[in-house]
């Protein structure tokens, strides 16, 4: 067992590291001798702990001893006037409690439904949503403050709001952190955007007042931990940290209806040192999408998203299990996805880029290992001709003829797929579409097993022009320098294991 996170009132523990979201078999746990019952998930969180106290967690074979952190003071939001009755607007009371929280203190939200507008976080504090507590976001967009995209002054700019990789005005998130550090958001409570009850999902690509907000938005933050919280029904992306570092998301759940627009689960953008452990996603778009901005942000700030670890998590439904791009102009590198479960996704790993993203748009060092895929239609898709943006369908973006390598040419380096077990695939195991002028450098598939669904459908594997639908195919690669397949078992494949298109 291994301690993943400890706060003043909670902890998260990795029980076994050889499973995925679930362990091979459940274990019975005791905490300081008290029975906690059986646990089947790899990551288990503990709540209701006392600060600065030693605990002993045992699974019968192994014992883990840890100590909770100290806490200065604890502030109950009800003492600040919050009602939690599902009717009153508790925004002011909740915000007051946060602003009044002393250093290393904790704001406690007891069980109840707290209707609230966006709340702004403060450094050096813990926000705890107790079991049964719900921050129920108001649905009237007039109640939401706007975060300006860019504030300009004498050649300098201060960025706040963002939308799909550009510095644009957006509504504040349910929980917004701007330049804060050392914040913990913990507990078994829920942050619910209730987006379906407002107009957020109606004509979602039309800006009305500002672009849609998120449930958690962090900009220029560091040392942030989110544990246990369930996020659901976001107006747009659920969790969106950008230009932030040392972030931990542990044992969280992110939920949105399958037809909800752009409700990505977790989208770190130009962040570094991000860890996601024991998380569960079931959303309307990509479960996790790793980004680094569109052209302006990529060229101006050149800040990649890097050192990302995603483990013991479940991506259940959603378009992509883990996606890189398409806003990746600052580059994405050193991403490790391991010991995860993906179920029912369109694609397992999906890399999306296109001509014009820029010379800093380098995707490199992406590793999938020990991932179980169940009903994932296409486990691996790399698409360097993704038809996004207004000119995405243009001849220049879609040309299979080599174009001059210039400042707009993106790069895909080394991608590894190791010890993958995928059942119920449909279209193909992998589809790789590089650029003729800059092929995908290296794709390595090793020690993995793939099988197809009996009733597999023919599907178009990549969103690019002139990509035909396919069914039960192996790895199809065009414009790739090296594709290595070692120790690969393909069951039910129709055609060659590897088809290199020249």
């Amino acid at each position: 067992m291994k301690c993943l996170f400890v706060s003043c009132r909670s902890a998260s523990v990795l029980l076994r590291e050889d499973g995925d979201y679930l362990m091979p078999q459940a274990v019975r746990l005791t905490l300081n001798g008290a029975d906690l019952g059986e646990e089947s998930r790899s990551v288990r969180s503990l709540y209701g702990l006392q600060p600065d106290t030693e605990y002993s967690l045992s699974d019968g074979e192994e014992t883990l001893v840890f100590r909770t952190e100290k806490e200065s003071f604890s502030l109950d939001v009800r003492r600040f006037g919050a009602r939690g009755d599902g009717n009153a607007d508790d925004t002011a009371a909740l915000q007051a409690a946060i602003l009044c929280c002393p250093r290393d203190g904790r704001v406690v939200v007891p069980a109840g439904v707290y209707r609230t507008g966006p709340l702004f976080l403060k450094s050096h504090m813990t926000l705890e949503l107790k079991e049964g507590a719900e921050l129920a976001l108001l649905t009237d967009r007039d109640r939401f403050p706007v975060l300006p995209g860019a504030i300009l002054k004498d050649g300098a700019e201060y960025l706040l709001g963002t939308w799909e990789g550009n510095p644009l005005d957006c509504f504040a998130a349910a929980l917004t952190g701007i330049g804060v550090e050392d914040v913990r958001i913990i507990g078994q409570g829920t942050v619910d955007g209730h987006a379906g009850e407002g107009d957020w999902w109606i004509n979602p690509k039309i800006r009305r007042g500002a672009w849609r907000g998120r449930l958690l938005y962090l900009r220029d933050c560091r040392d942030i931990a989110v544990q246990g919280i369930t996020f659901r029904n976001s107006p747009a992306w659920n969790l969106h940290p950008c230009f932030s570092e040392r972030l931990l998301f542990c044992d969280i759940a992110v939920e949105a209806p399958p037809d909800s627009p752009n409700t990505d689960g977790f989208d770190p953008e130009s962040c570094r040192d991000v860890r996601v452990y024991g998380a569960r996603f079931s959303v309307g778009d990509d479960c996790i999408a790793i980004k680094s901005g569109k052209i302006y942000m990529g060229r101006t700030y050149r800040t990649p998203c890097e050192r990302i670890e995603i483990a013991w998590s479940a991506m259940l439904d959603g378009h992509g299990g883990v996606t890189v791009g398409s806003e990746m102009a600052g580059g994405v590198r050193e991403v490790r996805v391991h010991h995860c479960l993906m179920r029912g996704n369109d694609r397992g790993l999906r890399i999306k880029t296109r001509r014009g993203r820029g010379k800093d748009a380098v995707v490199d060092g992406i590793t999938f290992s020990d991932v179980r895929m169940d009903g994932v239609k296409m486990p691996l898709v790399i698409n360097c001709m993704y038809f996004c943006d207004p000119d995405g369908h243009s001849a220049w973006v879609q040309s299979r003829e080599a174009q001059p390598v210039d400042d707009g040419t993106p790069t895909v380096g080394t991608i590894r797929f190791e010890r993958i077990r995928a059942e119920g695939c449909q279209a193909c195991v992998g589809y790789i579409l590089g650029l003729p002028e800059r092929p995908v450098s290296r794709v390595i598939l090793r020690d993995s097993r793939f099988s197809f669904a009996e009733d597999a459908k023919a599907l178009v594997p990549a969103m690019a022009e002139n990509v035909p639908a396919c069914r039960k195919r192996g790895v199809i690669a065009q414009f790739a320098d090296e594709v290595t397949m070692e120790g690969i078992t393909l069951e039910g494949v129709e055609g060659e294991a590897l088809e290199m298109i020249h």
Partner: protein
Amino acid sequence: MGEIKAAWREWTEAAEAAAVTAAELLRPDVKSLGDGGCCFLNGCAEMYRVTGDALYRDTVLRMLDLAAGADGFLPEHAAGLGRALFFALDETGEERRRKAIAPPAGPEGRTTGALLYRTEPFRVLYDMRFGGKQQAGAAAERFRGAGGCPRDPDGAGWYLAALIDCTDLTDEQLYEHRRALAELFRAAAKQVKQPDGTEDAGNGELLALYAALKGIRLYLLDGERLEGPVKRAAGLQAERWLKDPEAIRRRPGAAGPVLLILSELLRS
């Protein structure tokens, strides 16, 4: 700026009267696609968007019909009326209005501020609406290629108005292109001395005031520093033209810039 709103109650009839007068006097100018006529139609369109006063909409539609030939089409070089044509299409939904919108063409290289005003915003609008947004980067290049902001105050005003309108018309999700235009505008605006409102301003100078008001509204200029003086100057200029019933008759070409200024004052 409550005083602007209060003044507007007095100015409403005067502005309508000025529009009626200008419409009559600018008929030949619209027909010959002159700067004053083109700008006037843009001013009317903006005033309609802000006030909902049908007089402005009907003026645009009527004058476009006047400018069209017997076949209903405008001359190929009618880029100056292009934005008004889109306005007419949006307002009427008529197929003949859509057909009247021909792909824009305009000068490349060094040119005048007034010519940029006539051609560039229409080019951008056409690309955004009908062109698949694939030429979004070209506008900034053409402004750069035009030789920068003219030194004469009149030309500079047309140039600034063209730039701010192009910026505003560019889809904000094409951020790098919109930002490039915005930076050109910010740099040019620094070089231009705004009229202070105490003297009669030329048409281009009036447009410089319009551009400054719009730049402040779009947060491209320092509103904290500029909003007060620019609005005061703009208000004085608007008042000067609207209080004197003969002013527009003497210089009908000022109607467009004045209406554009008014539309921005009313938006603030």
